[in-house]
């Protein structure tokens, strides 16, 4: 069973990994709530599940294939229509590389 509560630092780290710029106030608020939730869901560890296969999906379907035929898709104009910014018929995004030479 889990001995340590989830810490504020751990929540801050997970938020960074999740690309959510949480404020300090939010960290203060969310960390104890998450700790309470994690304590509750840790109950699953009580279940004796030795040798029980995991289920990721209930229907038992395996992969589905279709004929590789071209079908109609969105036009570039439709695809770009809802973009926050575009330039020269492309999505325009903030820089993704550092500024150093």
């Amino acid at each position, binding site marked *: 069973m889990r001995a340590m509560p989830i810490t504020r630092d751990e929540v801050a780290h997970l938020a960074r990994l999740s690309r959510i710029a949480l404020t300090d106030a939010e960290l203060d608020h969310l960390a104890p709530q998450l700790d309470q939730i994690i304590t509750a869901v840790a109950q699953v560890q009580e279940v004796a599940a030795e040798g029980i296969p995991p289920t990721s999906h209930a*229907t038992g379907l395996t992969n589905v294939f279709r004929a590789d035929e071209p079908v109609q898709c969105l036009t570039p104009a439709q695809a770009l229509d809802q*973009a926050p910014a575009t330039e020269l018929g492309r999505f325009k995004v903030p820089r993704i590389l550092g500024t150093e030479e």
Partner: protein
Amino acid sequence: MDLTRLTAAEMSAKLAAKEISATELTQAHLDRIQSVDGQIHAFLYVAADQALSQAGAVDARRAAGEDLPALAGVPVAVKDLYATKGMPTTCGSRILEGWHPPYDATIVERLKDNCAIILGKTNMDEFAMGSSTENSAYGPSHNPWDLSKIPGGSSGGSSASVAAFEAPLALGSDTGGSIRQPAAVCGIVGTKPTYGGSSRYGVVAFASSLDTPGPFGRTVLDTALLHEAMSGHDPMDSTSINAPVPPVVAAARQANIEGMRIGVVTDLSGDGYQPGVLSRFAEAVELLESLGAKVTELSCPHFKYALPAYYLIAPSECSSNLARFDAMRYGLRVSDDGSRDAEEVMSLTREQGFGDEVKRRIILGAYALSSGYYDAYYGKAQQVRTLIIRDFDVAFDQVDVLVSPVTPTTAFGIGERADDPMAMYLADLCTIPSDLAGNAAISVPCGLAEEDGLPVGLQVMAPAMADDRLYRVAAAAEAAFMARWGQPILSGAKGLSA
């Protein structure tokens, strides 16, 4: 005659007989929305012009002598997580505010193929995470029985719209109970079809192994009509089941449970359940027995771990699914002033665009999936999922359907559980097992709790692709309750001043 008080089946018959037009019927619902939605706030978007033009087209086709489907001209409200071309789709989130999808969800296309009239988009908990609509970025919806109470969630705008006669039918989606719980607390019918029985294409993803689109109606037959129209194989959804739609409408008309074996799940009862919910449920079980069903009690010992397993599996899937909201190709983008890189803009946008519950679940999912914790949390939850499926398998060897309450309490007050996530999660206690197992379940009204006069729902669960059994049982119960009450349950809903 107030057209909004008709059932969808009656609307369909009157439209076919040309006693009423689709235009009149649509206008009557738009007028109703205009007069009561200020109090209910079921809709985030009302598609008045589109609905009237659709209705006009249906009337023209009928006048030309075309043979039209059963739902032709019948209005439907659509939960705001179905992609709709030409209408906004927000998922109750700021991050999608003003987003207009470039395509229709398959189910929306099917509604259009069936000539149903889309009235607009209904309120919901942000990204379908919640049981009250209080997590909507656009404010909560209100329960037509008592405006100070929640209408359930996450599909609470849809349930409220149907209970308030703003729409005869509505689409919802159920991941942990988001159709059945709102149906129960609003006194209407709602079904979670078998997972894979209804297409997820164009339904914004929350937890993909659980998300199941489904119907709401005021009667069992109405709900079956929408269920049949929306369902069936879709090549655009790789988890869609390629098999005929179970005969739900025929089952709703049959309404006979003579000799049917019904199992009462003893684990879904006891501490934490409101007395009035348990007494209405016990009465419903007696009623089913009096209608000729063979009732037995049985235990599903792993159901008590369904809630914790769900709150590991669903957040894990959501933390991955919601990564797509990255401020790059559509949706909100903030703080892009040229000085910040993509990662900063992404983090600031997600901070501003997501509400508390969504943030909680993304972080919880990231935690459950992180190395070092994966086996203890996500891995273990997946094993519990197997055990719950086995519990169902054992039960369905002995009985045809299982029954339980839908949710432990009647509608709670707006604000009462808003900042207590664990208390909110308990609303899903009885509905989660069917989501984890991917089978079918329905909520049908079974009376009012004596202590507060608010509606209680009876849950019926059936094996995967035996959705028709739900409708047989629910329709039989509904007919017997109607005979006892002498009027539809919604006649008691007095929350609206209109």
